[in-house]
């Protein structure tokens, strides 16, 4: 046990490990906040689609040899979020088909571009780490860390400020609109926040595993608690705890960060599912 602590202590001497932990915790917090809304609004597939878009955008940024890829990826992903929400409402190609088209399309184009133009010797390694995150969280530079921190603060602040509106629009969109709430505007806001979260989370778990980070903590919390506020708080706590544990395990065990975090999330979901089945379990 002592040896384990010593090893952890040694790792914490390195700034990149500390950066990784800070960014990981922030990303976990942000991604869990909107999980309940996404699950209940049947928006989870939009998150999945957007993560593929982010992959395509990252490929473009990579071949353009940009030093900091995040701003470009952010702009493209947010634009696609807006586009998807607009087409979902009134278009000849209906919502899910449009999402499937855009997400698979950007995956294919992204991989194609990387193959054609990449200067790197190890293309499949690059692709793999973009898709599954592998060690990119440990290679964060200071500007990226700051960008992550700023974006996280904005996401959390927007969520708290619009908490009541988001609840109203999620629970009953027609009622909210009849009462004069601009529901379409808030749906757009939700989509933009998802896009920001996805771009943030790409650093942590890679683009294929992002949905897990958004969905699992929310589903686990919904097994345990019965009010919107307690579900939201519980899902934030679970998400941060799972990500921390996952990162520590992956640092000590040398496993890929993203998939380790998702594995911890799955175990916690299974536990919550079991606890939720106990009659008269946790309630509030």
């Amino acid at each position, binding site marked *: 046990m002592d040896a384990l602590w010593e090893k952890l202590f040694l790792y914490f001497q390195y700034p990149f490990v500390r950066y990784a932990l800070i960014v990981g915790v922030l990303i976990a917090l942000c991604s869990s906040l909107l999980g309940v809304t996404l699950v209940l609004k049947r928006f989870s597939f939009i998150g999945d689609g957007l993560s593929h878009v982010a992959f395509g955008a990252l490929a473009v940024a990579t071949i353009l040899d940009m030093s900091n890829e995040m701003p470009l990826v952010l702009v493209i992903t947010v634009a696609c979020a807006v586009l998807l929400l607009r087409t979902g409402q009134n278009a000849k190609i209906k919502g899910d088909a449009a999402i499937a088209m855009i997400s698979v399309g950007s995956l294919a184009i992204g991989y194609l571009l990387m193959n054609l133009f990449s200067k790197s010797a190890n293309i499949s390694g690059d692709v793999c780490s973009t898709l599954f995150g592998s060690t990119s969280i440990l290679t964060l530079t200071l500007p990226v860390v700051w960008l992550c921190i700023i974006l996280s603060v904005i996401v959390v602040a927007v969520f708290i400020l619009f908490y009541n509106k988001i609840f109203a629009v999620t629970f009953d969109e027609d*009622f909210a609109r*009849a*009462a004069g709430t601009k529901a379409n505007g808030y749906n757009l806001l939700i989509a933009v926040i998802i896009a920001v979260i996805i771009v943030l989370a790409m650093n942590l778990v890679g683009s294929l595993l992002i949905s897990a980070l958004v969905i699992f903590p929310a589903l686990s919390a919904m097994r345990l608690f*019965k009010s919107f*506020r307690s579900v939201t708080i519980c899902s934030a706590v679970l998400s941060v705890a799972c990500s921390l544990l996952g990162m520590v395990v992956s640092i000590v065990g040398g496993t890929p960060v993203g998939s380790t975090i998702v594995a911890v999330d799955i175990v916690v979901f299974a536990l919550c599912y079991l606890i939720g089945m106990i009659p008269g379990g946790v309630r509030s």
Partner: protein
Amino acid sequence: MAQLICEDLSLGYEGKAILKDLNFQVEAGDYLCVVGENGSGKSTLMKTILGLRAPLGGRVLTGDGLKRTEIGYLPQQTAIQRDFPASVWEVVLSGCQGRRGLRPFYGRAEKALAAENIAKMGLTPLTKRCFRELAGGQQQRVLLARALCATGKMLLLDEPVSGLDPQVTGEMYDLIARLNGEDGITVIMISHDIDAALRYGSHILRVGGAVFFGTKEEYLTAAASGFGKGGDR
């Protein structure tokens, strides 16, 4: 001036009208029942009144101090709500959303209003319970309390008793009649239960087939003569 006026209203989907040239008005304190077959445009009419969709022609006006966003709406329940984790308190309080405008949090006045309407619906012991675990009639009363938070003047009820058993249905109708009689709240109710409409309503609007609008007495007279001379007033 009437609280709600519909002028030459035409409703429908993608340019095809279901209802044409609908004219009626609702005065403060009226209890209007909208009856008609499924697919006759009742729900479309309701959404148009609420401003959720634009009419194909004509217009909806509000007056007598009523704003369009001050109509309390009791919608039919959606699939989302069946697995939504929310307490009774959270649901009722969300009815104050419209009057909050852009201010982010609920103040003391909104919380007092929510507590008052929860008490009025006899739900105080259930305040902390989870909405989705309540019985159908209790859920409807929670949504009614939420609608009351949004309005003190007019309620729009979309099939408020669908799926409820006969006893709870009777209680729900009595509750609505009390809100109309004692609190003077105007009620517009969509229903396909013509017997209840004739028992509780003061006015009837029949859509689909021969359109009829008038008081209950006029409806009964018109029905006796087979709607031959009835029609729009």
